[in-house]
């Protein structure tokens, strides 16, 4: 199985649980398990090769220009982590089937779980740091969904939010760090970066990159001072805690540190930041864990402590410590996942996880007792369990590590950490399972069914097997994974139980003995702990978040006071200011073009335009008059187009003008007919000044542009030269639209169609709201025309209709070679149709409408799309146009271009969109007391004749 498929499988599989849940919970769980199992098998197929030291690769270019490639690689480290993620994932899926209650939406849970699994697998297999970052963010998002799975619990929601805030923030830092790293090396491919240790460490940007990357790792792996989110994330269902917070997500930070170890490690900065943080976290987590009564909180802080331990080992920077770190990752994943699942079992059966309310469970839950005992003894570091082996090696590594030339600090603190670790592990066993049986459990506890205890039991068996025969069980895996971390020769080490009498053994004995003594004094210590004033992480976090939110609100409220003119004027002033800065800051070339001579026509047009614009400003409060004046301006713009050799634009402008004025008239029917005089003279002066400045700026810019030549050669020459031979048309404008820039046009007609659909949807929602009812009952206005559908107009529009349609067809057909085309033809046909509505009334016209306008838009988009796709069959890119000349006997030679079919799509889209927009607006009018009339004319002589005859 290719690596991309292994990474993609959980994502694809995430679609299944939502569907399969309809077939029952067991089927759903099995389906999910099958997805993970398939991916796991796909991974294990590669295992023999990886164990031989080969690196499996998969490469796919995505955006090579950005250095973003879908490159995956599988080496020892990747195999170890992917195996953990998929293997423990499989156990968790089985366990969750029995853990989740009947009312929990299981399909959703498995979907989230698979999304998370895919993201994790993606992280550990990525060979491109940009790709890795994408997966990294996906784990933050999917873990947010998983932690907040019980949406009804406030702690769940808050915990999810906190986890997302902390890990998301770390993710941002990580992005920065990784980009710096990639820039130093000049490649975003991990395998390249890993080869460039000297280059990276010599760079002045090494420290910033290191700190940013470490913030990402520390937040993800809950290292001090970011450790606080992990205990709060325990509000998640236990399968989530067992999966995310022991075996996988929190190890993502460790993975990244291990992955980048060959380039980043080995410097004093690395040692003092990473090892110190790890050491503090390890001791702090262990101390707090001892005083937690909630089983999951205890395990959470113990996880924090063990993550600190592994971080510290990676921080040492020695190959031996790296081997120990890898070994402990395996061991911790096995015993901690087993413990989390067991804690879930206790919670599930006894209905409480409070240690103070438990005790004496060993007879009631013997199976769980055995599992917990095995796993907890391993966590404590007792011989014959796997935790002992890595702890011994850790103490060994610590005893050889001086901190600021002091040889005692690191061994002493690690021993204290181990001591507390022993204490809380034994507390977990003794206070939960030993002691007298109680009779006040919230529920009657007993061992769960096989399906629920089998997954932790399997892990417990592994704990023992690795503990007894480490070299046999995991020796090769540790070797190949640490080889990948170190990226060179493996140091001397041996995975065995008895290393002889050495410092580590003494320290270990001190830790076990001290831990047991500590536990025996637990009652008194606990009371003291509860009395002590401790900083509460959640309160601090909440107040920080609250403060930031408040500050953001203040800024937003200050800037956004709801005054649109204010926003607009700020925007305009800023634009003018930026333009002025550019103008006065730079130098412009002088005029290089001759001024074109002016004839009388432009002067008349200019006068009309300027006077109309000025009048519009002066009389804008009379809205109807302003609309008429705007019509004049629009007309003059069309004239300008035609005068300056742009007949296509003139035709478009004039037909759009008609449609726009109709639209505004329809709207004005409901809006107030006048604008009140509200703005004072100061305000008018201010707005007038801004407007005058804007006008001068834009006008001046236009003048400078018009009087200077093109700074670079225009690409128009290319279009002119290729229009006929390449696109088969002499109207270059149309050929550009349907051929050269066809994809642009395709997008634009879709936008137009969407705009019309938005209008339709808004009309629906307004008319179906109480507003619609109000409109219906609105009394008719007094100044209504007596004859709304005059005979003359009805007859004229009907006669015009076929002519207008024919003009439309004509304009369309000539479009490729002469001015015209789909846009203009569409507008003309739409106006011809609108005229029928206006003349004969909405009902009359709507009754004769054959196709809904939505369908017209859709047909247009499809026509354009299929034309484009058609060129694929000729083996060319989307929308490549083709044309040919055909002999049709009576009419002579004809040119047919595929661009024509595309233009049909444009035509249909424009007709549909314009009609849908206008029709929607006129439906307001229709609602407003427009009595449906079956007749096209209010006064019809042929109909009214008998009436009059009767009267006379």
């Amino acid at each position, binding site marked *: 199985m290719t690596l991309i498929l292994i990474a993609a499988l959980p994502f694809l599989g995430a679609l299944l649980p939502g569907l399969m849940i309809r077939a029952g919970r067991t089927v759903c769980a099995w389906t999910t398990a099958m997805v993970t199992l398939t991916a796991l098998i796909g991974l294990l197929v590669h295992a023999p090769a990886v164990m031989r030291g080969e690196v499996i690769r998969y490469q796919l270019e995505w955006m090579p220009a950005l250095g973003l490639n879908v490159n995956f690689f599988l080496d020892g480290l990747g195999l170890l982590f992917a195996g953990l993620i998929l293997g423990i994932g499989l156990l968790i899926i089985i366990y969750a089937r029995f853990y989740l209650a009947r009312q929990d939406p299981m399909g959703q849970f498995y979907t989230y779980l698979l999304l998370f699994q895919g993201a994790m697998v993606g992280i550990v297999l990525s060979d491109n740091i940009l790709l890795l970052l994408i997966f990294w963010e996906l784990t933050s998002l999917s873990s947010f969904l998983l932690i907040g799975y019980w949406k009804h619990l406030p702690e769940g929601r808050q915990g999810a939010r906190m986890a997302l805030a902390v890990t998301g923030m770390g993710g941002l830092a990580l992005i920065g760090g990784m980009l710096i790293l990639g820039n130093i090396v000049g490649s975003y491919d991990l395998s390249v970066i890993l080869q460039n240790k000297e280059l990276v460490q010599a760079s002045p940007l090494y420290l910033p990159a290191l700190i940013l990357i470490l913030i990402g790792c520390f937040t993800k792996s809950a290292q001090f001072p970011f450790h606080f989110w992990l205990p709060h994330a325990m509000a998640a269902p236990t399968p989530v805690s067992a999966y995310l917070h022991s075996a996988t997500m929190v190890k993502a930070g460790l993975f990244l540190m291990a992955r980048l170890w060959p380039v980043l490690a080995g410097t004093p900065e690395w040692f003092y930041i990473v090892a110190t943080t790890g050491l503090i976290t390890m001791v702090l987590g262990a101390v707090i864990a001892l005083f937690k009564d909630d089983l999951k909180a205890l395990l959470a802080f113990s996880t924090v402590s063990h993550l600190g331990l592994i971080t510290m080992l990676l921080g040492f920077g020695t190959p031996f410590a790296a081997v120990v770190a890898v070994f402990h990752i395996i061991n911790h994943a096995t015993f901690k996942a087993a413990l989390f699942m067991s804690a879930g079992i206790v919670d599930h059966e006894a209905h409480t996880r409070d240690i103070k309310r438990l005790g004496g469970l060993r007879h009631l839950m013997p199976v769980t007792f055995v599992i917990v005992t095995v796993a907890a003894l391993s966590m404590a570091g007792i011989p014959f369990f796997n935790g002992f082996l890595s702890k011994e090696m850790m103490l060994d590594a610590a005893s050889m590590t001086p901190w600021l030339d002091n040889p005692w600090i690191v061994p002493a603190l690690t021993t204290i950490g181990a001591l507390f670790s022993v204490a809380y592990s034994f507390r977990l066993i003794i206070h939960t399972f030993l002691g007298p049986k109680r009779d006040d459990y919230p529920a009657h506890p007993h061992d769960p069914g096989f399906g629920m205890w089998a997954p932790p039991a399997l892990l417990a068996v592994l704990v023992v097997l690795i503990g007894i025969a480490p070299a046999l069980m995991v020796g090769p895996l540790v070797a190949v994974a640490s080889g990948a971390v170190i990226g060179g020769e493996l140091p001397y080490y041996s995975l065995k139980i008895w290393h002889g009498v050495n410092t580590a053994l003494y320290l270990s004995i001190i830790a076990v003995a001290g831990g047991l003594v500590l536990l025996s004094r637990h009652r008194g210590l606990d009371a003291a702990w509860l009395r002590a004033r401790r900083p509460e992480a959640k309160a601090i976090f909440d107040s920080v978040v609250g403060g930031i939110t408040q500050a953001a609100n203040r800024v937003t409220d200050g800037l956004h006071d709801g005054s649109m003119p204010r926003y607009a004027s700020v925007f305009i002033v800023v634009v003018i200011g930026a333009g002025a800065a550019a103008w006065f800051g730079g130098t412009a070339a002088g005029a290089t073009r001759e001024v074109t001579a002016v004839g009388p026509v432009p002067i008349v047009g200019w006068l009309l335009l300027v006077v109309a614009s000025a009048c519009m400003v002066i009389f804008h409060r009379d809205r109807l008059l302003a609309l008429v004046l705007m019509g004049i*301006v629009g007309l003059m713009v069309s004239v300008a187009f035609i005068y300056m050799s742009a007949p296509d634009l003139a035709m478009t402008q004039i037909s759009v003008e008609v449609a726009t004025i109709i639209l505004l008239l329809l709207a004005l029917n409901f809006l107030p007919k006048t604008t009140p005089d509200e703005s004072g003279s100061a305000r008018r002066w201010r707005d*007038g000044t801004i407007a005058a400045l804007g006008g001068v700026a834009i*006008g001046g810019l236009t003048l400078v542009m018009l009087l200077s030549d093109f700074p670079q050669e225009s690409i128009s020459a290319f279009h002119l030269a290729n229009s006929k031979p390449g696109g088969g048309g002499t109207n270059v*404008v149309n050929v*550009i639209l349907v051929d050269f820039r066809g994809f642009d046009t395709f997008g634009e007609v879709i936008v137009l169609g969407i*705009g019309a659909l938005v209008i339709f949807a808004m009309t629906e*929602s307004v008319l179906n*709201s109480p507003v619609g009812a109000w409109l219906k009952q609105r009394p008719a206005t007094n100044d209504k025309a007596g004859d709304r559908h005059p005979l003359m107009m009805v007859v004229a529009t009907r006669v015009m209709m076929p002519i207008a349609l024919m003009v439309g067809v004509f304009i369309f057909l000539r479009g490729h070679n002469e001015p015209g085309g789909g846009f203009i033809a569409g507008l003309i046909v739409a106006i011809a149709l609108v005229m029928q509505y206006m003349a004969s009334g909405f009902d009359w016209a709507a009754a004769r409408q054959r196709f809904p306008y939505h369908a017209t838009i859709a047909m247009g988009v499809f026509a354009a799309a299929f034309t484009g796709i058609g060129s694929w069959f000729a083996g060319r890119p989307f929308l490549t146009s083709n044309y040919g000349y055909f002999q049709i006997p009576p009419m002579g030679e004809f040119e047919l271009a595929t661009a024509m079919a595309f233009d049909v799509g444009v035509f249909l889209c424009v007709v549909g969109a314009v009609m849908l927009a206008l029709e929607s607006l006129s439906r307001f009018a229709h609602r407003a007391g427009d009595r449906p009339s079956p007749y096209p004319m209010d006064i019809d002589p042929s109909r009214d004749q008998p009436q009059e005859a009767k009267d006379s």
Partner: protein
Amino acid sequence: MEYLLASAIGVMSAAGIYLLLRMRTFPVILGISMLTYAVNLFLFASGRIAINLPPVLLNETPTYADPLPQALVLTAIVISFGMTAVVVLLALGAFLSSRNDEVSLTPTDPQAPATEPAAGEGRK
């Protein structure tokens, strides 16, 4: 001719900006339309002024009007119609819902009869 075109564009922009800064929806829509004219003409002008030049390929003459700005402005005109239509409907929906055509939020906003978000959308 250059001066005429540039000043016309400037006057239309000024009128558009002034109307854009008014406090009621209808003048604002008119202002947007005026700015649209100005911008379209400006884009068109980037091809420089060409008078009496053929817009389509003929065999006689070697010079033509610049087709590229024309093609870009053509779609811009049609799209701006779509945009105007959407804005008009927003204004209309907002006015019908709240009986108020002010563009700004005011503390004393009369409560709209409709509670549907789509109808209130236009007030943002």
